[in-house]
């Protein structure tokens, strides 16, 4: 039933958006997201996109248009990258606190300066506390599957929150590989039309939305928003199971573990570096080293209990971050994982790694070295508090 195609990550995202039948799309092109907009306009020109497609003059306008459209009850989609996301920050926050189930792919690109157009999830990770759900994926099939699922998760009445499906610029956005594409009928059965129930812009039924609100009520809104974030974990798992029964593919929900059953050590990853790490884990295992992998898919809500459970039996772990948390001297995912483990029965050694910034490659050699470094520190019972930097040997000036 499904079609086997060959496509890059941006085409996978655009195809997922088309299959989800959003009523309104508003987007502004920015490298490396630009082809998503080109593909969608191409679908529209060919008569294969039923959406109202709004060509806007900025990302701020894109999110503002979608906020209005979502309040009027439309299913909404957009995509952006880095500086575009930064320009969108004001309506970005408002879309989540207004509980608008907008789906947005973020094609992860390094934040400037220095000027860079290449990959790195610093853009979306920096906005992790703005109330959106955020999922990070490792290949083009996962981009397509997760973007389709994102509409179901966001629009679920237990959630009603906007969602980002984030994928690495160039390493996925411009990487071409085999992707199975479900049929329109399959997606239609999985994803019924969105019917807004909580706030509706309708001239026939006037309604005040977002009036000046006292702190007491703001606290109540935030508490409910947090409860909705927590509920999204269960919905994500449900949606994953249902999608698996439809297509045969499960992505594991909030986290995905690989060869963790009897693992003594773990490497924690997020995004496109995961595939190289899976390969590396197999190589270490073939030499009798009991190491496994935990991939963080869902960063918001953070799957605290699942991460704690997955890492509960290892002697220690390392986290590979393609981003920085200024002031902590390590990456953001490391910080998140460590926070989740505060409630664990015991504290085990861990090592933070930073690599692959600004599109630098995180090579097989680098992930293998990272694993060896982690094992050495763990065996010595030592936590390393400042990031170990994964430098590629080929060029560059080490500061």
């Amino acid at each position: 039933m499904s079609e086997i195609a060959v496509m890059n990550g941006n085409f996978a995202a655009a195809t997922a958006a088309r299959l989800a039948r959003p009523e309104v799309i508003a987007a502004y092109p920015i490298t490396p997201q630009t082809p998503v907009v080109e593909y969608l306009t191409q679908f529209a020109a060919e008569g294969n996109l039923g959406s109202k497609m709004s060509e806007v003059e900025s990302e701020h306008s894109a999110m503002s248009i979608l906020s209005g459209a979502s309040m009027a009850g439309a299913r909404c989609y957009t995509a952006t990258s880095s500086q575009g996301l930064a320009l969108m920050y004001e309506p970005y926050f408002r879309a989540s606190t207004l509980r608008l189930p907008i789906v947005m792919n973020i094609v992860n690109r390094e934040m400037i300066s220095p000027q860079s157009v290449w990959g790195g999830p610093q853009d979306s990770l920096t906005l992790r506390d703005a109330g959106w759900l955020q999922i990070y994926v490792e290949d083009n099939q996962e981009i397509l599957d997760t973007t389709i699922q994102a509409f179901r998760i966001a629009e679920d009445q237990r959630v009603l929150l906007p969602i980002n499906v984030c994928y690495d610029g160039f390493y996925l956005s411009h990487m071409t590989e085999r992707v199975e594409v479900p049929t329109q009928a399959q997606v239609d059965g999985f994803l019924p039309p969105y019917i807004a129930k909580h706030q509706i812009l309708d001239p026939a039924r006037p309604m005040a939305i977002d009036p000046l609100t006292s702190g007491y009520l703001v606290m109540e809104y935030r508490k409910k928003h947090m409860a909705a974030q927590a509920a999204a974990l269960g919905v994500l798992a449900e949606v994953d199971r249902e999608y698996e029964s439809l297509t045969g593919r499960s992505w594991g929900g909030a986290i995905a573990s690989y060869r963790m059953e009897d693992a003594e050590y773990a490497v924690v990853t997020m995004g496109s570096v995961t595939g190289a790490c899976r390969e590396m884990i197999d190589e270490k295992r073939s030499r009798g080293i009991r190491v496994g992998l935990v991939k963080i898919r869902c960063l918001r809500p953070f799957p605290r209990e699942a991460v704690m459970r997955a890492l509960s039996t290892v002697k220690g772990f390392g986290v590979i971050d393609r981003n920085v948390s200024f002031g902590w001297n390590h990456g953001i995912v490391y910080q998140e994982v460590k926070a989740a483990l505060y409630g664990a029965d015991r504290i085990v050694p861990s090592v933070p790694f930073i690599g692959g910034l600004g599109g630098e490659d995180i090579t097989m050699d680098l992930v293998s070295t990272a694993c060896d470094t982690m094992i050495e520190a763990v065996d010595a019972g030592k936590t390393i508090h400042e990031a170990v930097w994964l430098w590629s040997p080929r060029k560059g000036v080490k500061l």
Partner: protein
Amino acid sequence: MKEIRLHGRGGMGTVKAAEIIVNAKVIAGGYGNSIPFFGFERQGAPVTSFVRLDEKPIRPKTQVYSPDCVIVLDPTLRKAVDVFEGLKDGGCLIINAEPGSTIESLDLVPSVGSVAMVDATGLAIRRLGKPITNTAMLGAFIKGTGWVDLDAVAAKVEEFWGKANADLLREAYDATVVLQLR
């Protein structure tokens, strides 16, 4: 798994050629991925693209550092780029060679195990009126390695760029000279 690195110049269709190789492999029931290396690219500047081919899903989404095969779309690139960097011992070189080129004139390194050469620039100018060598070099690649099917690639080339390019592909396949060096 087979790993391939393509060297071209901006505007030659290097990235698209890599994607067509992946397409042909997937049509045959296999797996492939291609990742372009985007530098500060512009028309005429060196462009690199990486391809992996296998019978099972390919997990690494990284660049290729030790290719089994290197494809050089423009002979003048030899002056700008070390196209042999990391080539596996016994690896295969697919090269756009000026008419009259010989093994000696190609100035190879010892790791090269076989060479497939064709005057892709000349063929492309005659067929297309411009030195866009990607389809001709795909023909040479197929002749030199046999890793993907000529008809599958021809169908994809025709779909993307029309019949003249598909004809060029087949002409280049026939014209390519393959030399085993060991």
